[in-house]
């Protein structure tokens, strides 16, 4: 088991991306990444906070960073890129003493500093390592053609997110290749899916997510692997809305990459949670895997 790292699940992990949280925990345990939940963590504020005010947004993040410091830990991981960007931007901006003092004024007590945050994807690649992940595979995903979609903020801007290439990231590609899948080079890896506009502006999500579904379909991918609760919701839950907006008929599953890892690592179905997805990947998955034999 690795040294324990703090785990920040993020609000959607309790609701609309429950299966992402469950599969992430199961995969991490299976490959020896020890996660410890941050006790009584609170919402980072996501997009609404940073579009209202940067000090407010940083304070909401800093409360959680302080909790991690209180655990005696220096590193926290989160599966959600939006949480990650807020936590990292807060850290980045608080390097300026003037900004930090404004943030500290909003907190019960000043933030003591010294906590770094990463995505679960980064932790899997850098702490566990691709070789160890490949060694843990029990059911190779041979015959499965996957397009990897990273979402717009996981790796951008590079000065803040500091992981992987910001135009052509490969971390997920490499993990799923290690799991035995055939990863097709996806040209729109970091192109925004519509983000949080699903509720107020479903037409925007329709157009943007539609482009992604179109690209994956044209490439002949069996499914699109994702690493973000919002991306997943837009591509999967809202796939019907996309089809209605564009007059198309896409029917391509968009599972979390941790769910696909779960299949390769023989994690029980209940923890993978494919039944929680709208476009069920199981028929295509079993067809692709058996077709390969």
């Amino acid at each position, binding site marked *: 088991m690795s040294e324990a790292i703090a785990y920040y699940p993020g609000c959607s992990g309790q609701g609309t991306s429950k299966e992402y949280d469950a599969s992430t925990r199961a995969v991490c345990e299976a490959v020896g990444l020890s996660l410890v939940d941050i006790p009584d963590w609170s919402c980072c504020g996501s997009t609404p906070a940073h579009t209202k005010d940067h000090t407010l947004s940083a304070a909401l993040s800093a409360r959680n960073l302080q909790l991690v410091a209180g655990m005696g830990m220096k590193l926290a991981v989160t599966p959600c890129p939006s949480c990650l960007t807020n936590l990292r931007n807060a850290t980045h901006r608080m390097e300026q003493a003037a900004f930090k003092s404004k943030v500290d004024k909003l907190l019960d007590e000043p933030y003591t500093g010294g906590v770094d945050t990463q995505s679960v994807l980064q932790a899997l690649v850098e702490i566990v390592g691709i070789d160890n992940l490949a060694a843990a595979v029990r059911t190779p995903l041979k015959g499965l053609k996957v397009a990897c979609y990273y979402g717009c903020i996981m790796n951008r801007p590079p000065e803040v997110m500091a992981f992987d*290439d910001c*135009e*052509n990231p490969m971390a997920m590609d490499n993990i799923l290749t290690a799991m035995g899948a055939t990863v097709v*080079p996806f*040209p*729109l890896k970091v192109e925004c899916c519509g983000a949080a506009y699903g509720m107020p502006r479903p037409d925007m999500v329709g157009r943007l997510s539609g482009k992604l579904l179109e*690209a994956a379909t*044209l490439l002949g991918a069996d499914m699109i692997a994702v690493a973000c609760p919002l991306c997943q919701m837009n591509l999967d839950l809202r796939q019907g809305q996309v089809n209605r907006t564009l007059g198309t008929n896409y029917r391509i599953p968009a599972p979390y990459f941790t769910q696909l890892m779960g299949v390769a690592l023989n994690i029980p179905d209940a923890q993978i949670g494919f039944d929680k997805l709208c476009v069920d990947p199981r028929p295509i998955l079993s067809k692709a895997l058996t077709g390969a034999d």
Partner: protein
Amino acid sequence: MRIGVFICHCGSNIEGTVDTASVAKSALEFPEVVLATDTMYACSEPGQDGIIQAIKEKKLTGVVVASCTPRMHEPTFRRAVERAGLNRYMFEMANIREHVSWIGKDREANTNKAVDLVRIAVEKLRRDAPLASSKFSINKRVMILGGGVAGIQAALDCADGGLSVVLVERESTIGGKMAKLDKTFPTVDCSSCILGPKMVDVAQHDNITLHAYSEVESISGYVGNFQVQVRKKATYVDWSLCTGCGACTEKCPSKKNPDKFNEKIGPTTSINIPFPQAIPKKAVIDPTTCRQFVKGKCGVCAKVCPTGAIRYDMADEIVTEDVGAIIAATGYDLFDTTRIPEYGAGRYPDVITSLQYERLLSASGPTGGHIQRPSDGKEPKNVVFIQCVGSRDKSLDRPYCSGFCCMYTAKQTILTKDHIPDSQSYVFYMDIRAPGKMYDEFTRRAMEEYGARYIRGRVAMVYPKGDKLIVRGADTLAGTQVEIEADLVVLAAGAESAKGASKLAEKLRISYDKYGFFMESHPKLKPVETNTAGVYLAGSCQGPKDIPQSVGQGSAAAAKVLALFSKDQLESDPQISHVDIKRCVGCGKCIMTCPFQAIKEVEFRGQKKAEVIETICQGCGVCTSTCPQGAIQLSHFTDNQILAEVNALCQS
């Protein structure tokens, strides 16, 4: 001594904030000063005449001029006092312009400071001694590094001027980047047709020795007397026997190697001749791909060569060339477009560089001049050109403009239309830079007569969709985002310094800027000279430029060399270090610290001593501060002279 002090007004430049008359009055009180006056413009003809007359009338033995920086007019005044019959080193300058009047407006403070600076100058002058240059003979041979169009022009001009020329070229043929071009702007001349005759002239000129496939190994010496070690790299073909018939390239079984001359857009054989008009037209084997070298089995070329020229056991050879001057004309390389992942260079085969496109356009290129998509060989219809790739870009550490991309892109759109009449070219640009003669008209032709669609805006990404490439850019003038379904994308890559430029600069002991371009002496007034005597620059190694500018600089550098060699002997600067043998203890510290290796160890009566090589010493003074005994002194800046200045300042 009888010292004359002249305080210059410099119009209102100095007089505006310094009371020059008052400074002169104070100067009259200084020891050994017999004349102190203020003058309007000391450097002007009447000003200089005034100084010369004063020297004669008052029988002055030394002169101080308080005016601008010595970097401006020290040579002017030194020549003036020499004309009046004094040794030119019995002259000191006090900088009361850049160091006083240009700094602040407080007249009283400035005047006091000016008085102090004049006092220091007088004290130094009182300890100055006359100095004389020594003359040394020079070798009237010039070495030119780089056989591109700048180097070729410089070589021809020097050779026609009667000098003996050694031309060293890194590749197996001269011609540089210009030999790779199909046509040139703005005349749409065939590049190899206009360059070819010059290349042949170089090959046939009696005064030019050409070392192709060679590089500089090391350089020692000084202006007029350089020794250059040239490494003639092994070609594995005896060029004295090779006729360039090409039989070897026809039969070589290793056919799929990336072709360097064709910018790796086509395959070539391991033994090859770069292009039909190559000078010298001789074959070269690439040992990294040749089967004989890699696997130990082949030998086909040796069997088919009609003159038996193949030599698998050839080794590099070092030759020494003695020359009196060197012209660096080593050119440039293209920006590495794989540094911009969003354009897909290196990932998508139909995203190519401008130079690769040039090879596709050229009849001697890999496709025989037929424009074909590298992916499937089909003729493209929509060709998108993206300008400023790796230029004007702070985020890539390339903030400068490369100067020729706007022009060559316009040319490429014109040629595309000529080759494929029903094609459509698009150009994404930020600005159009077309300053030369007929240049702007040429770019307008591309738009007005050849139907190229120019879109003002950058491109954010290029990605494949089916067998097309989607180019997503902006049209800032129309105020929106645009998309084009392209068959081929050509990146107008910017210019960078040539690979290895900084290493060569270190061998030449010249400066280079942060991008690796060699530094000229003065960006406006001395574009082809360096601060190292005897080393000149020509062409893109000094900064990106087009063909007429490169040719112009080639001729300019040749003119400098011809001027340098117009005398049989050169004078050395006497402001150099000398070793007092009585004080020298032979510790060798000066030898170790001299940045120019201008000090050598000699034996004197069985003891180790240091000796300065007068012609190499640049007068930097590092040795004088290093020497623990004070045995080595810099003439005109001796310890006593400098201490006299310090004393004068501290006691005032």
